[in-house]
């Protein structure tokens, strides 16, 4: 068993400092020889992980080389998306493979959702303390 790592909520809007705290998690994404560290929004309401277009490009991915089409919902439904698998690392935990819906939107944050971020990590929110703790899932022997 690993020890959970605690993070505090972060500001998303510098002009509203302290008024717009959200559970953002710093995560390093790896694809091939590329790596980028980004704030990921822990979004338990999101069915899937979402990767904005520009972050995918930073990871060296080429849109036309991603054959798997993914249909998103809500505001993202009007834009095409592709399924991609990326390696992610949180804190000093082991690397995990994360499937993302790579959208053409550059406005959306990196969203960490049910498939498959919350399948790989156990997260406990302490909303009143504006903090959360995270731990890799327990793997049965």
């Amino acid at each position, binding site marked *: 068993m690993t020890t959970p790592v605690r993070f505090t909520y972060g500001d998303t809007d510098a002009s509203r400092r302290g008024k717009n705290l959200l559970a953002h998690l710093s995560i390093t994404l790896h694809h091939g020889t590329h790596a980028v560290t980004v704030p990921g929004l822990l*979004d338990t*309401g*999101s*069915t*899937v*992980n*979402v990767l904005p277009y520009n972050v995918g490009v930073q990871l060296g991915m080429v849109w036309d080389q991603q054959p*798997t*089409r*993914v*249909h*998103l*919902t*809500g*505001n*993202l*439904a009007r834009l095409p*998306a592709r*399924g991609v*698998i990326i390696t992610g690392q949180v804190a000093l935990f082991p690397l995990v*493979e994360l*499937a*993302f*819906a790579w959208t053409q*939107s550059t*406005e*959306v*944050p990196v*969203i960490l*959702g*049910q*498939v*498959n971020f919350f399948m790989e990590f156990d997260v406990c929110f302490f909303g009143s303390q504006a903090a959360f703790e995270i731990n890799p899932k327990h793997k049965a022997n």
Partner: protein
Amino acid sequence: MSLTELFPAIKMLPRADKLRLMQFLVIDLAQEEGVPLLTADAEYPIWTPLQAFEAADTLLQMLKTHEVEK
């Protein structure tokens, strides 16, 4: 004009105008307080893909295939 003088006139208003008056007052007070309001002609992004079950199934299948190919 005082509020006491206004009341009879307000009472005479049709229902729709009373509702408009309420809406006007709520917006006016919110603007004075600096509360941001939603407007009908603006688009507000909600990025969370709720209930994107088809996308979830696709991604889970990709992960399974990836696991087998490793």
